[in-house]
């Protein structure tokens, strides 16, 4: 697991407040109010995409598009070099008396190579970035967070006021409120 950032793991962080919701609208309302009060939210886990939530918690734009562009350029260069080496430099072939250099027949291979590298590059980058590599232990804060529960996590530091955060969360009808520290959860 060398490639993984240990700090990303929830176990290696400070004490967390975990609020569990079953209603999407209350979740969004709670999140907005927390953000409005200046609380720094660690993350919100939902089983399905909730519209507008990304903007509320200030998720930055994914860098996947840049990775895609980089992979596409890599694939394009690789494949063009490959065709050139095989078909022009190393072993030119006369097929239907067509020229060998930079003809339209290169285009499908260049396209496919570009797409292939982009697809694999993006998939691997996505898995790596989201820590979905083989052998990882899941870090579900609630067994139902991939089913029908949504979770707000707030990391507690010296400056955070735990009571006021709990107050705000309670206003929006959470199903449960918990504390999470060193891999142990306790209900509040």
């Amino acid at each position: 697991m060398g490639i993984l950032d240990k700090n990303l793991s929830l176990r290696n962080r400070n004490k967390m407040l975990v609020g569990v919701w079953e209603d999407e609208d209350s979740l969004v309302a709670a999140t907005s109010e927390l953000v409005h009060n200046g609380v720094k939210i660690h993350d919100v886990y939902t089983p399905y995409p909730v519209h507008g939530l990304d903007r509320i918690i200030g998720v930055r734009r994914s860098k996947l598009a840049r990775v895609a562009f980089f992979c596409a350029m890599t694939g394009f260069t690789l494949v063009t070099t490959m065709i050139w080496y095989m078909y022009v430099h190393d072993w030119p072939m006369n097929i239907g008396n067509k020229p060998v250099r930079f003809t339209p027949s290169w285009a499908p291979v260049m396209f496919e190579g570009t797409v292939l590298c982009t697809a694999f590059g993006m998939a691997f980058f996505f898995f790596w970035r989201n820590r979905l590599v083989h052998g990882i232990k899941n870090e579900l804060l609630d067994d139902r967070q991939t089913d029908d529960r949504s979770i707000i996590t707030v990391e507690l530091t010296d400056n955070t006021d735990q009571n006021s955060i709990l107050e705000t969360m309670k206003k929006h009808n959470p199903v449960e409120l918990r504390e999470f520290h060193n891999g142990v959860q306790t209900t509040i």
Partner: protein
Amino acid sequence: MGHGHHIEIKQEQYTFSPKTKRFTIILMVLGLVLAGIGIANLNNDSHSTATEHKTEANANVHDSHGKDASAHGDHAAAASHDEPAEHGNVPNEQFGPRAEYHSLNKPATTRIFANLLVAGYFFLMISLAALFWYAIQYVANAGWSAAIKRVPEAVMTFIPVPLIVILVVLFLDKNNIYHWAHYEHLHLKPEDAGYDKILDGKSGFLNSTLLFAFPAILVTIWYLLSRKLRSLSIQEDSASKGDVSFFKKSIRYSATFAVIFGFTISIIVWLLIMSVDSHWYSTIFGIYNFITHWVSAITIMAIIILYLKKEGYFGIVTAEHMHDLGKFMFAFTVFWAYVWLSQYLLIWYAQIPEEMYYYQIRWEEYHYNFIINFALCFCVPFLGLLMRSAKRNPVVMTVIGIILILGHYHDVWFMVFPGVFGPGMQIGLLEIGTFLFFSGVFLFWVFTALTKRGLIAVNHPYLEESVYHDTGV
């Protein structure tokens, strides 16, 4: 939905502002003036009257068909002597009659009619593509587009105008535009000199009756379905809130239209455009033409929406909707290039003489047009719309959109003109004028149609979903 912030949905009524009206009229007048100068230049160029040309032309082609069948060495003699090796490749059997057909001194008016055909066809297909886009939104149960659905509704009202233009052009000048129509007119029997087996074999489909019947009947059917969809949409406006019966009916009519259109659009393309190169055929030509106009239609709709937003309408249409339209433009730009290359690559590789001449004349005699065509239809929009920020920027979208539309208009011009006139044609004032005039008429018509009803489909069941549409961070 509806968390975070609430957006109020209000009906908006578009009024055709004098400024916009002036702009469309300027386009029309400028188009007419430029086309007029172009026509005047044509008349100065030709030294004899059109009728003389025509009789001369008929005699010529009759003659040429005779020569071709018997002594085809004549053509070889007329062609280049210094490259005898080429004669094995160049298909004189195919090329001969066609080259002779091109070398006819066609009347100057043919260029006017060919231009009208290009413009009529382009705007007909754009209106149809807008209708198809509208139908697809219903068939796919799409929610995001509900806020802008009045724009395709307005664009599709334009369908009958270019149809009439095309039918008039065909009536007046089909023999000079289509080689096969000219040939049909000669009534040759197999034993006659100049008999063309290929054209005779195609005469079951390529004949004057079907040339008029198919466009007239098919476009009328599509237009009637579009009228029905339009009336369902306006009835929905005055229905009670939550009444989805019109929506469900729209889905049914859209599905009907999509199926009919999908199976029959190619017929129009074959008859009107592909048959210009009468000996040639390409199985991908139908989809190629469809994509050309599909991406143009989406672009025109995007530009109209951006313009309306700039005038203060469409408050509920956000950068999210424009982003999705931009994705449409970008995706189908790529798809256009895919189909363009597919058609070119197979013909290039197979090197079958009767297929090859389509590209031979376009590559050798119209080299710059060939490159400009690919640059305007693919390179510019691909690089221009690649970035997310470009799709959300009204200025970039408008500029790239206009380039894209010019490119695709040139694409249609490029399909028709080398086929009708052979080598040596160029875009002149007449072409520019025709395009500007038709754009003016089109915009005038569409903006007038927009005033006929509210800009927002207030009772569309997915309107709220569309208003809160979000493509994410």
